């Protein structure tokens, strides 16, 4: 007990001194090996190596590169134009167009931050111009951006799949209906609260022109996801094809991508991988040690003796993940908690794929919750608006997402239906 308290004190001390999570995990790994393991620290490096020596991980940098390329290009602008033309005759059409664009862009980029920045940079001024309130526009964009992590391809789902040894293709498939459900939920809300906003006239000409300009962007999710679900491509091959497609489209069709942009996207991806990969490697290394010491199994036993009902467990797990989402980034939370929660979920008969969806949606909400909600911070920086305005704007959306989370938690068919 004392040794565990020492470990907690060390972690808290390191956090106070602004030590990054990679270094903290290395400290934790070393401590756990020294105190509870056999003291051979070289095993940490060996486990780190075997953790990242996997073909499936190749998809992560490629999806990140792809998202980064699209963030710099014109795909988002063209998607918004198509969605705007389609929803012009609906009250709150521009807001609905924004949510739908976020959902489609999410189906290409796999990243919440990229979705928010790429769509938001174009949609935010348009929403303000059309008379939407600042707080609503910011809330819709920050929340719409989070769809990037549940609608496949999703990098958090890839991480969950790797760390729990669950099929990534099945996770992607399971994410489709929850993604559609959350999009409908957000879209419905935007239409209802903005019914007073004057509708625009629908124009077949504008729709035709926007479709002509946006057809290359609209085809992309079909190629990417169609390739994966049909079994034609593995997720890694699909990521490579999507990257090639986005490079060709942005550089030669949309003519939006300079060589400087390419360098910046590569640099961006490399540093992002630099923060993600060591984390993945160290977390998996610690998980291997914990598993060999049967810690997850013991925790699962303890949990099942303390909490008998599956419903209570689901509620407790959601509460835990929502709190974790407030203070921890998504990747770290998945890498640290997913193996433990999966083992616990098993004892209550929760499908690991369903658990992955629940975990992703929980941490998706964490992108919106202060103090460290990533989308709040990105929205504050990208749109130069006060933090308070953004937080006020996302509050109703968080309530909606919580409702969505409860439905997804207690209706597993929504996640598992397409797998059957």
């Amino acid at each position: 007990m004392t040794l565990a308290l020492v470990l907690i004190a060390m972690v808290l001390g390191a956090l106070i001194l602004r030590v990054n999570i990679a270094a903290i995990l290395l400290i934790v790994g070393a401590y756990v090996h020294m105190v509870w393991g056999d003291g051979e620290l070289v095993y940490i490096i060996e486990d780190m190596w075997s953790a990242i020596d996997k073909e499936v991980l190749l998809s992560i940098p490629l999806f990140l590169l792809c998202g980064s390329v699209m963030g710099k290009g014109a795909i988002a602008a063209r998607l918004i134009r198509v969605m705007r033309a389609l929803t012009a005759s609906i009250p709150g059409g521009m807001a609905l167009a924004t949510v739908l664009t976020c959902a489609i862009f999410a189906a290409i980029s796999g990243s919440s931050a990229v979705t928010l920045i790429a769509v938001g940079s174009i949609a935010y001024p348009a929403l303000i111009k059309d008379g939407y309130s600042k707080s609503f526009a910011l809330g819709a964009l920050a929340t719409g951006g989070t769809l990037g992590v549940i609608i496949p391809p999703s990098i958090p789902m890839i991480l969950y799949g790797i760390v729990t040894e669950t099929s990534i293709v099945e996770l992607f498939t399971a994410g489709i209906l929850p993604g559609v459900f959350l999009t409908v939920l957000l879209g419905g809300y935007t239409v209802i609260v903005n019914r007073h906003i004057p509708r625009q006239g629908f124009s077949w000409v504008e729709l035709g022109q926007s479709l002509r300009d946006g057809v290359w962007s609209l085809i992309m999710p079909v190629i990417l996801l169609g390739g994966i679900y049909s079994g034609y491509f593995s997720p890694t091959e699909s990521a490579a094809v999507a990257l090639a497609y986005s490079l060709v489209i942005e550089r030669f069709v949309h003519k939006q991508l300079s060589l400087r942009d390419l360098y910046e996207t590569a640099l961006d991806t490399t540093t992002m991988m630099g923060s993600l990969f060591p984390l993945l490697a160290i977390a998996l290394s610690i998980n291997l040690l914990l598993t060999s010491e049967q810690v997850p199994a013991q925790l699962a036993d303890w949990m099942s003796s303390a909490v008998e009902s599956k419903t209570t467990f689901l509620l407790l797990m959601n509460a835990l993940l929502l709190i974790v989402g407030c203070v921890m980034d998504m990747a770290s939370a998945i890498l640290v908690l997913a193996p433990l929660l999966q083992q616990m979920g098993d004892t209550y008969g929760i499908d690991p794929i369903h658990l992955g969806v629940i975990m992703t949606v929980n941490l998706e909400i964490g992108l919106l919750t202060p103090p460290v909600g990533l989308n709040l911070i990105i929205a504050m920086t990208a749109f130069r608006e006060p933090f308070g305005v953004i937080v006020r704007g996302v509050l109703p959306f968080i309530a909606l997402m919580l409702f969505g989370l409860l439905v997804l938690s207690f209706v597993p068919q929504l996640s598992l239906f397409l797998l059957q």
Partner: protein
Amino acid sequence: MSLGGRVLRVLFRGEIVVAISAYVVIFGLLLTDVVMREFGLGSIFGAQRISVYLMIVCGFLGLGLAASQGRHLRPRFLDGVIPASLSAAADRVGSVIMMGVFAAFGVIAIQFLLDAIEYGELARTIRIPMWTIQIVVPYAFFSTALRYAIFALDPSLRPKEALE
């Protein structure tokens, strides 16, 4: 520019060139492999394996690159515990701790490398000595430790933290 600044720049330029080149090769290999397969031309020997090893090299180089760009993930909910007046000192102590951790793991990684040499391990599929790839591990830890040592000595060189 100070010596520390020059060292940081040299490290960054060298590592980013290797990392970006590796990503270009990964992308090229995987795409060519898919295209060749689709046109019935077979596939490139070891394309996926080579790509994985290159990705690992990129991942480890990224450890230092992320440090130099302030991109390492860090939970910030306890940032307010230390008063603003002591914030710079806390950052400096944090840099010293990170330098120590990464340097210590650099030393451990050398043991890892020596083991690979001693056992004559070969890379899967492409059958080259494993240590020629694994040498990136101690390098990455030491390069990151050196960066944090420089940040501790001259905090003005420590990058502002990015959002993610």
